C-alpha cells in the first residue's frame, strides 16, 4: 500500500480518523493493530492489555512476520503496536510515526479504558438477578437489563427499549390508572416503592416489587427514572400457599367437633393473635364453655376445670409446656351458665405460628358427657339386673362352653344354696363341683349338648352343696347372646328338694289313705265273715236240722229253734254294730254333736263334751267325728286314763277339735296306723293334726279343720 506522509497522518488525526487506521496508512501495513496497557482492569486488581474498544486482549508478541513496538511515556508502558516485521529495516520511520502519534495514543488509551469500564458494568448489569429499568420522563423505556427483559417475557433487549413501561410491565386493566399516577409524579418523580402484578408477554403471571429513583441532569432537572425491581412471584406464591394452608388449618380447627384451646406455657388461655382479640379456641370449645372471649383470654384454663383434686389436669398442661404430649385426662369443664360437661382431653405442645412465643400448649378433647351419662345408665341398668338376679329365688350362674364358671358369675341364691363364698365359684367346672358325682356325666352331656346347639330343656338332677348335702334341682342351660368374644351359657336352677319332699309326703299320704281304706274293707269283710255270716250259716244248718227232726223228734226240734232265735238276734246286733262302724247313722241324721254324745256315752270312762250343735259340712263333721272316735279308742286302749275331755269349736275360720286325757302320755304320732290315718284324713281337708303327749303328762290331740263356705 502507499504510505501516507507524516503530515498527512497528523491532518487525518486532527480530522478525527481512528488512530489505528491512521497508523496503518502511515506505515503502509493493513494488518497493523494497536493494544493499550491498563494498570488495573475493572473488577480485578491486575493490569492487562485491551484493544481500542476496551475488550481484553492477550499479551502482544512478535513472530510469524510480525513485530511489536512498545510505546512508553516517562518510563510508563502505554501501548503496543503490532506491525509488519519488514518495517524493522526502517527504524527511523517507525520512531518518527510513533512520536507523531504520542499524544493521540494517550487519548485513545483513555477512551479504551472508559470503554472497558462501561463493558464491565454492562456485564454486571446484565448478570444481576435484580431488574433494572430506565425510563424517560415520558414513561418510555430507555434501557433495561437482561433480568428485566426476561421478566417482561421477551428474549432481546431491543424488543422492549423504546416502548412505554406500562405497556410492558402493567396489566391492561391497570394501565390507565398507572399512566395517570405517572403524570401526577412529574416533574419531580420522587423516589418510591410499589408492587405490581402483571401477566407478561409469555403469558406468565409475575409479581414484582419495585423501587424507583429519579436521575437528575447538571441543572437538577429529572431526565430519567431508574427502577430497580425484584421478581417476588415465587415468594408471594409461597406466602399465598402458607396463607391458604393456615386457612385450611383454621377451618379444620374451627370445624372440628373436638374442643381445642391454645394456652400459653403457664396455662393461660391465649388470644388468637395480636390483631385479633378473639380467644384462641375453636368453635366447639366456645360453644361448650359459652364464656365471652374477653372473660376467657388471659384466664387460667384450670379455672374452668370443676375440680382437679388429683392434679392430673395441671400435670397434663405442665407436660405439654415442657414439650411432651400429655396423657389423657378426664375433667368436667365449667360453662358460663354454671352447668358443666365432661371431657376427655390431652395437652399437646405446638409451635406458635404468630412467632410471639416458641411454644404453645394446645388442649384438645372430646365431650363425653353423653357417653358418660349412658355409662351411668348402663351401670344403673346393670346394677338393676344384678339386683334382680341376686334377689331371684332361682339359682343363676354363667358358664362358658367348657362348663367353667365365670368370675362372680353366680347370684346370691346360687352361693347361699350351694354354701360357697363368691370368690370360690369362678373357674370351677360346673358339673364337677356343684353336681352329685353320680350325675356329673349326665349334666355334662346336657350342657355340652346345648353348647353344640341342642334346644335347652328343663332337667331334674341332684346337685351337691359344699358340705356334701344333696339337693334336687330343676335346671336349664340356655345360650346367651354374645356380648364379648366368649359364648356364655346361663344356668338357671330351682331347688325343688322341698317340693319333692312334699310331693313324696303327699304320695305317701295318699298311699296310706288307700291302704287304710283297703284295711278297713278287709276288716269289714272279716267282721261280716266272722260275725253275722257265721251266725247265719249256723242258723241255716240249724234250720236244716230242725227240718230233719221235726217229725221224729219234735222236742229236739224246738230246742234247736230256740237256739236259732238267739243266734239270729245276735246276728242282727252284730250287723247294727258293723253298720255304725262304717258310718254312724246318727252323724248323718242328727249331726256332729249328737254323734259325739253317743261316742262319749259308750266310752268306758267319763267324757266331758263341749261341742256346737249346728250342722257343718259332711266332710268336716266326719273328720271331726273320726278324730274323736279314734282318740277315745286310743285312750281306752293305751292311756289308762280316768277321764277325757272333748271340745269342738270354731276358731278363725277353722273347726278346732281337741281330745285331752289324763293318762300316761307318751303317744308317738309316727307310730301306729291310727294316728297317722287321722293325720291323712285331716290333711285331705288341708287341716292339721297335732299330738302333744309328754310322758306321764296326758295326751292332747288337736285337729284344725278349715271351714269352707
Amino acid at each position, binding site marked *: 500500500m502507499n504510505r501516507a506522509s507524516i503530515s498527512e497522518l497528523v491532518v487525518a488525526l486532527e480530522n478525527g480518523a481512528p488512530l489505528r487506521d491512521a497508523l496503518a496508512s502511515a506505515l503502509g501495513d493493513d494488518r497493523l493493530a494497536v493494544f493499550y496497557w491498563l494498570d488495573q482492569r475493572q473488577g480485578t486488581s491486575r493490569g492487562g492489555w485491551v484493544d481500542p474498544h476496551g475488550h481484553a486482549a492477550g499479551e502482544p508478541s512478535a513472530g510469524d512476520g510480525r513485530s511489536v513496538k512498545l510505546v512508553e511515556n516517562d518510563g510508563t508502558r502505554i501501548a503496543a503496536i503490532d506491525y509488519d516485521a519488514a518495517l524493522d529495516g526502517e527504524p527511523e520511520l517507525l520512531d518518527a510515526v510513533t512520536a507523531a502519534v504520542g499524544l493521540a495514543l494517550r487519548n485513545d488509551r483513555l477512551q479504551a479504558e472508559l470503554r472497558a469500564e462501561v463493558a464491565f458494568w454492562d456485564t454486571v448489569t446484565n448478570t444481576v438477578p435484580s431488574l433494572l429499568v430506565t425510563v424517560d420522563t415520558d414513561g418510555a423505556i430507555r434501557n433495561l437489563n437482561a433480568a428485566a427483559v426476561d421478566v417482561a417475557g421477551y428474549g432481546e433487549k431491543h424488543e422492549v427499549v423504546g416502548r412505554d413501561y406500562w405497556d410492558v410491565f402493567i396489566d391492561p386493566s391497570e394501565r390507565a390508572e398507572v399512566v395517570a399516577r405517572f403524570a401526577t409524579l412529574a416533574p419531580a418523580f420522587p423516589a418510591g416503592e410499589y408492587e405490581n402484578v402483571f401477566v407478561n408477554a409469555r403469558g406468565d403471571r409475575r409479581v414484582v416489587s419495585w423501587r424507583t429513583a429519579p436521575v437528575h441532569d447538571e441543572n437538577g432537572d429529572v431526565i430519567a427514572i431508574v427502577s430497580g425491581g425484584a421478581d417476588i412471584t415465587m415468594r408471594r406464591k409461597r406466602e399465598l400457599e402458607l396463607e391458604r394452608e393456615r386457612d385450611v388449618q383454621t377451618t379444620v380447627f374451627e370445624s372440628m367437633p373436638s374442643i381445642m384451646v391454645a394456652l400459653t406455657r403457664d396455662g393461660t388461655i391465649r388470644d388468637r393473635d395480636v390483631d385479633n382479640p378473639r380467644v384462641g379456641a375453636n368453635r366447639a370449645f366456645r360453644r361448650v364453655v359459652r364464656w365471652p372471649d374477653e372473660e376467657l383470654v388471659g384466664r387460667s384454663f384450670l379455672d374452668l376445670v370443676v375440680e382437679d383434686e388429683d392434679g392430673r389436669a395441671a400435670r397434663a398442661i405442665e407436660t405439654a409446656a415442657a414439650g411432651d404430649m400429655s396423657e389423657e385426662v378426664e375433667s368436667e369443664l365449667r360453662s358460663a351458665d354454671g352447668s358443666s360437661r365432661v371431657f376427655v382431653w390431652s395437652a399437646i405442645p405446638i409451635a406458635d405460628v404468630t412467632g410471639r412465643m416458641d411454644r404453645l400448649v394446645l388442649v384438645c378433647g372430646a365431650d363425653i358427657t353423653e357417653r358418660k351419662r349412658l355409662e351411668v345408665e348402663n351401670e344403673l341398668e346393670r346394677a338393676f339386673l344384678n339386683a334382680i338376679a341376686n334377689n331371684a329365688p332361682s339359682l343363676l350362674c354363667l358358664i362358658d362352653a367348657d362348663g367353667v364358671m365365670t368370675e362372680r358369675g353366680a347370684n346370691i341364691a346360687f352361693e347361699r344354696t350351694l354354701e360357697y363364698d363368691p370368690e370360690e365359684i369362678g373357674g370351677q367346672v360346673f358339673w364337677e363341683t356343684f353336681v352329685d358325682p353320680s350325675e356329673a356325666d349326665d349334666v355334662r352331656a346336657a350342657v355340652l349338648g346345648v353348647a353344640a346347639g341342642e334346644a335347652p330343656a328343663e332337667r331334674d338332677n341332684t346337685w351337691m352343696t359344699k358340705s356334701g348335702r344333696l339337693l334336687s334341682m330343676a335346671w336349664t342351660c340356655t345360650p346367651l347372646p354374645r356380648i364379648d368374644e366368649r359364648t356364655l351359657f346361663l344356668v338357671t336352677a330351682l331347688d325343688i328338694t322341698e317340693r319333692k319332699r312334699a310331693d313324696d309326703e303327699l304320695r305317701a299320704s295318699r298311699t296310706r289313705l288307700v291302704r287304710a281304706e283297703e284295711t278297713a274293707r278287709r276288716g269289714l269283710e272279716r267282721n261280716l265273715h266272722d260275725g253275722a255270716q257265721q251266725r247265719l*250259716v*249256723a242258723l*241255716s*244248718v*240249724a234250720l236244716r236240722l230242725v227240718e230233719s227232726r221235726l217229725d221224729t223228734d219234735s222236742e229236739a226240734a224246738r230246742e234247736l229253734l230256740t237256739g236259732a232265735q238267739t243266734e239270729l238276734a245276735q246276728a242282727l246286733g252284730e250287723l247294727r254294730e258293723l253298720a255304725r262302724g262304717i258310718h254312724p247313722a246318727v252323724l248323718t241324721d242328727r249331726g256332729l254333736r249328737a254323734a259325739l254324745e253317743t261316742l262319749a256315752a259308750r266310752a268306758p270312762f267319763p267324757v266331758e263334751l263341749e261341742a256346737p250343735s249346728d250342722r257343718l259340712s259332711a266332710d268336716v263333721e266326719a273328720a271331726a267325728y273320726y278324730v274323736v272316735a279314734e282318740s277315745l279308742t286310743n285312750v281306752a286302749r293305751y292311756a289308762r286314763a280316768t277321764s277325757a275331755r272333748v271340745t269342738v269349736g270354731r276358731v278363725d275360720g277353722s273347726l278346732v277339735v281337741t281330745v285331752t286325757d289324763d293318762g300316761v302320755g307318751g303317744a308317738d304320732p309316727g307310730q301306729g296306723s291310727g294316728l297317722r290315718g287321722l293325720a291323712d284324713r285331716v290333711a285331705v281337708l288341708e287341716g292339721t293334726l297335732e299330738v302333744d303327749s309328754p310322758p306321764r303328762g296326758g295326751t292332747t290331740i288337736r285337729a284344725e279343720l278349715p271351714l269352707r263356705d
Partner: protein
Amino acid sequence: MSPTALIVDDHPSFRASARAMLEAEGFEVVGELEDGASVRAAVLTLDPDVVLLDVQLPDMSGFDVCAELEDYAGRTVEVILVSSRDLSDYGELVETSCACGFVPKGELSGDLITALLA
C-alpha cells in the same frame, strides 16, 4: 261201726252246728280243732275217716293243711273243705287240692257228705 269225723273251724257256733248235723247223720265226731297247726297231729292220734276242714283258718289256709295231710303216708283220710264263701271264690284251688270235695257252710248236710265220700 259209724264213720269218724274231725271238725276244723275257728268259729264255735259252726263247730256246734256241724257236730249236731254230722251226729244226726250217723257220724261219730272224734274231735274239734280251731286252727290248722294241730290238724296233722290230731289226724295221727284220732285217725278220723273224714276231716271237715274250714278254708279260712286264723293261722293257715285249709289248702295248706290239706297238702300236709296228703304227705301223711300209710293212712287214708278224706278231706272235705267247707267255707262260708262260694266255690267260685277259690277258683282252681279246690280242684287242684287233694280234698275230695267242697261244701258251702250254709248247704252242709249229712247226705251231701255221704255223697262226696262215696
